[in-house]
């Protein structure tokens, strides 16, 4: 039995009456049965999707790979590395509080910058491997005249790790590019979280989020960068981020949360 390529879709020929259901939704309808269970092919398709998602969570973040991808994308900012207080994946998954704090002894060069970009493994290092460089390049080319801090690659990191990192770098705004929790058909989705005046203790309501950066299935780098830059400009103008910015929604592209 050969595994099918790509996403599991069960779209049948038009003369199959079940295709009426299958064509109506991406949900796994009309799978058929073997007794009370699933046919073998459907069972294995499901396991394959779960395996890809599980592996995406547990793939270690590869700094060399990210550095190479950034160079390929023409990004010439230096790349610094930080670790959170979670020493390993097992701890990281059980202790989100540790993933929000930099490891003891973390040193970052203090400066004065308009923006810092933090590349955080989150729940899908694969998303950072595949989509961080392209997103960073698209964002930077839209921000002429902005002073941008050295890039920071963060291991075992949650979104809120961007708060102490952004503060230490002296950034007015921090954007954390983070691997999102893998779904069964989306193991490589990158999320972008913007926080104005980052410092420890910022609440989630003080952030703005763009989710599902994942070409070709989700947002493209250009779409994500356009939206992010609109948010960045609004944030700089208002001196804030989060719910306040959302209320200014008229100025922003649709779908910005």
């Amino acid at each position, binding site marked *: 039995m050969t595994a099918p390529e790509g996403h599991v879709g069960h779209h049948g020929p038009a003369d199959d009456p079940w295709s009426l259901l299958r064509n109506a939704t991406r*949900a796994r309808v009309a799978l058929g049965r073997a007794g009370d269970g699933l046919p073998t092919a459907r069972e294995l398709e499901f396991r394959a999707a779960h395996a890809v998602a599980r592996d995406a969570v547990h793939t270690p973040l590869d700094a060399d790979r990210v550095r190479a991808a950034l160079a390929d994308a023409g990004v010439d900012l230096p790349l610094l590395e930080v670790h959170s207080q979670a020493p390993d994946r097992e701890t990281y998954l059980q*202790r989100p509080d540790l993933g929000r704090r930099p490891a003891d002894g973390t040193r970052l060069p203090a400066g004065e910058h308009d923006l810092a970009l933090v590349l955080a493994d989150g729940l899908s290092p694969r998303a950072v491997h595949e989509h961080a460089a392209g997103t960073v390049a698209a964002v930077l080319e839209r921000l002429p005249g902005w002073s941008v801090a050295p890039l920071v690659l963060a291991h075992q990191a949650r979104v809120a790790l961007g708060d102490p990192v952004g503060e230490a770098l002296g950034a007015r705004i921090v954007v954390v590019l983070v691997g999102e929790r893998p779904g069964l058909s989306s193991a490589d989705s990158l999320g972008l979280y913007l926080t104005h005046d980052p410092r420890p203790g910022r609440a989630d309501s003080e952030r703005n989020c763009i989710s599902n950066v994942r070409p070709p299935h989700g947002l493209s780098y250009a779409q994500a960068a356009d939206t992010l830059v609109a948010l960045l400009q609004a944030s700089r103008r208002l001196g804030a981020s989060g719910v306040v910015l959302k209320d200014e929604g008229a100025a922003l592209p649709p779908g910005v949360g």
Partner: protein
Amino acid sequence: MTIRRTTLGGHTHEFPSLSDLLAKATPARSGDVLAGVAAESQEQRVAAQYALADVPLATFLTEQVVGYDEDDVTRLILDTHDAAAFAPVASLTVGGFREWLLVRAAERDEAAISGLARGLTPEMVAAVSKLMRNADLVAVARRTRVVTGLRSTLGLPGRLASRLQPNHPTDDAVGVTASILDGLLHGSGDAVIGINPATDSPAQTIALLELVDAVISRYEIPTQSCVLAHVTTTLRALEAGAPVDLVFQSVAGTQAGNRGFGVTLDLLTEARAAALELGRGTVGRNVTYFETGQGSALSADAHHGVDGRAVDQQTLECRAYGVARHFDPLLVNTVVGFIGPEYLYDGKQVVRAGLEDHFCGKLLGLPMGVDVCYTNHTDVDGDDTDTLTLLLGAAGCSFVIAVPGSDDVMLHYQSLSFQDVLTARAVLDLRPAPEFEAWLARMDLLDDAGRVRELAADAPAARALLAAAR
């Protein structure tokens, strides 16, 4: 404040408060470690269980883990406590209560066990569950009877119902309908056809309610619908005259947790009254539906009790049942593997929590179901959900949740499949709700042995249902 002590293995273990004792006695789970209340060693955990076994049940009526003056959930629990129902076990310790339950379960004395519900507080039930093994939780829950109804009857012996969950990422009417039909063709949906809306707005909620109501009316299905919007949204839909069968709300075990969910007890009272007024039931008058889950209070930083001490997540979960039961629900389910590995880390913890929640909810008088589920960052897979599902079937679980192919394409997590429900029913000889089973027979969806048949797409029954997707 009583300091409780146990000497075990040459060490004296001290537990300075009731909440500390309950937390330290709890079987291991990541959420209690995260909250900083878990036992620090296996020996300390068992020492706490020894000490807890000696605590009189009546202590929980006078010594609180969350203060009476600060918390309306505590006030609700204590102000509605039924001393007459409590009388049969009033003189027992927690350890003695465990044995009392096991003896009644072995004697199949459903009336004795089920009659306690209003005499028990959530903390008593949480406490005894911490002394019980998985099989104890199954054995007692199996002999605890809670029957509810609206247009189908749930909780009867020998039955396992399911919530058909036809979620769609954009609430697309055709997509939702396809999933509903797929579920009905597999014999699912007798507990409820319940949609988590992608957008929580009155307009979207009304559109979905009308969609499901049309399917139910067209095929005269003896079940109910629910759109799991916030209770304030459902109230707006009720005001607009929408066909609301059930008022849904997520609830937590502290006033602060419920504030985090944007609800008060008054709001729930108002919504229930409005739904009751519609009189949409045929076999019963239970018009509320609640979801809960261990860790929800902690995730909202609403897990503190007396003197600011953190309370363990399973005790708080039981207190959420104390809220739910006040509103005579048709359905309550814990969403046991949804919240993530920082609360329940792996299959062992999820299975344990699912059995605890089911047992505790049922003993408190709730029509308890379970969303047997997991996310991809938790160490859980289909083998674990099989284990929990079959154990819950043996425990007499009221209902489970099922989605097409186990894959919820809106909420991005995995629950049971319709096939999983068929398997559990077949293995354990369980049947759908009686009204729904009769409907399946009328629609020619059952074979001679009463099993849901696998239909060819051109079978008359399939064609009749598929017509709705056109």
